[in-house]
């Protein structure tokens, strides 16, 4: 049974479902998940398990299980924040201050109570360590009021604060113990923090698991935290093991139970046996950006050409190339996040319309160069995707010359802003769709690389972008993002193509193995036997 294909259920699916349920019933009677081991297959990308510096995928998965954050997300839903260490939080009316009230029963794995002081220490340390994740909390100030209140202030209104504080990097450490090991939250923490790799041998968190062993090349072993303040996790032991992508498919196909795989691509997942569960959420968008600088290209800077090329896109066909869980792109926000356009707004390919636009604009026999990184991203060769774009554009008389570049060359040429058309994947740093406006509004960083300056942009795009930033609440911003995308689909140089899904594959005896775009891929503590 696959959660993804459930909606496409056919009679054969119903048979598989029955079989799967029968299989689970058998599994339940023979085993109790409580003293069992959960095996997680993933291709390791991990440098550290220190929450202050963690940034890579595998590290985030483990840190999320070892530590707690003030707020969090449940399952694959990243539209609604859930309480974790904080039982409630509120934003001041001017939007610059967030107040988090901590619950009083949370304790660390050594039994010490979690206090506001611990949270402030951890967040200040994250900010001052100057690691990769530190950038997201720059401009925020953290202060404790009493034992149970954390106050976060920023100079400008920042509705994304709770979203940022759900990141694994914003996890709360046992500050007393951490200080004993040499940790500091001082402003010069980047040089004066002396904890080194000690958090790679023992964790200092309040999460459902504690660290048993860590080997960055083979495996990470977690055991249940006996003093966990919440509900005990179903599995007493979790082994995260390093398995390369090609072998994951084989391993998970042969697994008898209690196993999940995290790095299968959409096309691979589509080929798995129906006995496995596939959970995926479309959270990465792929888009073209057309250079608006007439000096770079008279063609791509012509609004009629942008519109025409947009009409040639075959979203359904592109989504098929990405495999399981992928969707056509209605707008620039992937459907996983609040503020995405409804799928009923998916654009429809209109080759005649495209031809007419080109003819009216006097553009005939146009030839443009499309530059893309020659990489495989999430198991999909980007060359395949752009070849499809090329095929569709050709049907409307647009000749696209594909230019693959090694990733470092691509990044360089992209930042120089001299490419006619760029193609690249785009993921959000944290699950707040309005963060796209920071990069993609007219005159913002990504836009400048495509020559879309404030002078060249249509006023409606500037207004819509300002409307998003003017909103002070998360709800208001998500609302404004809908209108923003409508405007961007009309006048921006960005053409959203399709959204690719992150995928978690689990054996049929498990529940709760849901892919999440929140940053930690899957919540290990939520996984249980059926």
């Amino acid at each position: 049974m696959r959660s993804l294909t459930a909606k496409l259920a056919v009679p054969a699916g119903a048979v598989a479902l029955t079989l799967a349920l029968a299989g689970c019933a058998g599994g339940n009677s023979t085993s109790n998940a409580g003293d069992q081991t959960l095996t997680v297959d993933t291709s390791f990308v991990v440098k550290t398990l220190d929450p202050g510096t963690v940034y890579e995928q595998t590290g985030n998965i483990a840190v999320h299980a070892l530590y707690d954050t003030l707020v969090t997300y449940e399952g694959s839903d990243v539209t609604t924040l859930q309480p974790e260490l904080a039982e409630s939080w509120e934003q001041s009316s001017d939007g610059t201050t967030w107040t988090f009230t901590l619950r009083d029963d949370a304790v660390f794995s050594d039994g010490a109570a979690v206090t506001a002081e611990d949270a402030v220490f951890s967040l200040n340390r994250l900010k001052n360590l100057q690691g990769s994740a530190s950038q997201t909390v720059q401009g925020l100030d953290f202060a404790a009021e009493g034992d149970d209140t954390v106050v976060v202030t920023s100079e400008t209104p920042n509705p994304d604060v709770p979203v940022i504080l759900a990141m694994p990097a914003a996890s709360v450490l046992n500050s007393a113990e951490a200080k004993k090991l040499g940790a500091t939250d001082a402003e010069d923490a980047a040089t004066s923090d002396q904890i080194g790799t000690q958090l790679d041998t023992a964790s200092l968190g309040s999460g459902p698991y504690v660290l048993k062993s860590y080997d960055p090349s083979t495996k990470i072993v977690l055991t249940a935290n006996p003093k966990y303040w919440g509900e005990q996790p179903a599995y007493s032991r979790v082994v995260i093991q390093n398995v390369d992508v090609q072998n994951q498919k084989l391993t998970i196909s042969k697994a008898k139970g209690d196993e999940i795989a995290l790095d299968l691509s959409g096309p691979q997942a589509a080929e798995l046996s129906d006995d496995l569960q596939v959970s995926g959420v479309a959270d990465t968008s792929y888009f073209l950006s057309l250079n608006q600088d007439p000096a770079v290209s008279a063609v791509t800077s012509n609004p009629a050409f942008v519109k025409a090329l947009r009409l040639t896109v075959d979203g359904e066909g592109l989504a098929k190339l990405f495999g399981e869980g992928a969707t056509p792109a209605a707008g620039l926000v992937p459907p996983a996040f609040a503020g995405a356009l409804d799928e009923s707004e998916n654009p429809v390919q209109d080759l005649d319309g495209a031809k007419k636009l080109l003819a009216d604009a006097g553009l005939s026999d146009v030839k443009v160069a499309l530059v893309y990184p020659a990489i495989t991203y999430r198991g999909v060769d980007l060359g395949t995707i752009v070849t499809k774009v090329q095929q569709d554009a050709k049907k409307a008389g647009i000749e696209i010359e594909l230019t693959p570049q090694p990733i470092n060359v691509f990044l360089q040429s992209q930042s120089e802003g001299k490419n006619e058309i760029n193609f690249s994947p785009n993921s959000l740093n944290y699950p707040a769709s309005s963060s796209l406006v920071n990069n993609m509004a007219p005159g913002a960083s990504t836009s400048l690389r495509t020559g879309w300056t404030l002078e060249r942009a249509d006023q409606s795009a500037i207004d819509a972008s300002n409307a998003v930033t003017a909103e002070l609440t998360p709800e208001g911003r998500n609302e404004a993002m809908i209108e923003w995308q409508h405007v961007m689909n009309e006048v921006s140089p960005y053409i959203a193509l399709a959204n690719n899904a992150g995928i978690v594959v689990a054996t049929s005896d498990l529940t709760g193995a849901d892919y999440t775009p929140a940053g930690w891929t899957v919540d290990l503590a939520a996984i249980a036997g059926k």
Partner: protein
Amino acid sequence: MTILPSDRVAVSRASRFRRDRLRVGGSLGTGSFWRPLTVVSLGIIVLWCLLAAFAPWVAPYDPLETVGDNLQPPSGAHWMGTDDLGRDVLSRLIWGSRLSLPLAVAIVACSLLVGGIVGLAAGYFGKAVDNVAMRLADLVLAFPQIILAMAVAAAFGPSVGNAVLALVIVSWPLYARIIRSSVLSVREQEYVVAGRMLGLPTLRSIVKDVIPNSAGPALVMSTIELGNAILMLAALSFLGLGPRPPAAEWGAMIALGSQNLGNWWVSLFPGLAILTIVMAFNLLGDAIQDHLDPRSRNARTR
């Protein structure tokens, strides 16, 4: 200094190419050349050449168009299945020969031309010219061929022309060395010296006496190298440094299929295409070499 197969060919053969020009053609009629393996190799090469020449009529579909569902295994409609974009693998394979074969010939021809000129100059003039040219050749040969080709292709950007250029840059020294060593012995022959003494200008001496008598070993070498050129070209496009997509190129086709080996047909058939043609060229090259140099054949069959 490394001893290359080219040196062996050159040294052992130099004395046989005296005034009798290329005897290859003349003596192929005798029995020893037409061994079964040679016939099969020639057959395979001829077959691929025919496929390349008649690709538009032989290939069942357009190699660049989506003509079926994505990733269909081999079936009656698509003998070798379809790839990620629903393109017919068989058609792409056949059209791929239109890239690989002419490009391999171009690579070898250009290398032969560049290497030939350098080798001739080095061998005929000797002294400083020889030293400079051969040290330059040594410099290029000091790098692993494929790594250097990758660096060159990456520096120029991916395209057909640049891939060919990169491979010419890494393979001309082979020919320069082999021709130089032939020329070294030919230029001391009496007829060359006599010609010079009769007042033949340098250029005429080279064209009339030296080239015809020193080209043989290099031509044998180029047969063997044709296979190598196909392989290196495929390697470059496997790494994304060859012809730009969506061109049907064997190396690029293998790269596409390697993402997911479950769809074995996407990679297997272009792999087999490369295997057959490269092996055929190598066996043919070996046969020619053995035929021209019975000593090395005996050494092999003993």
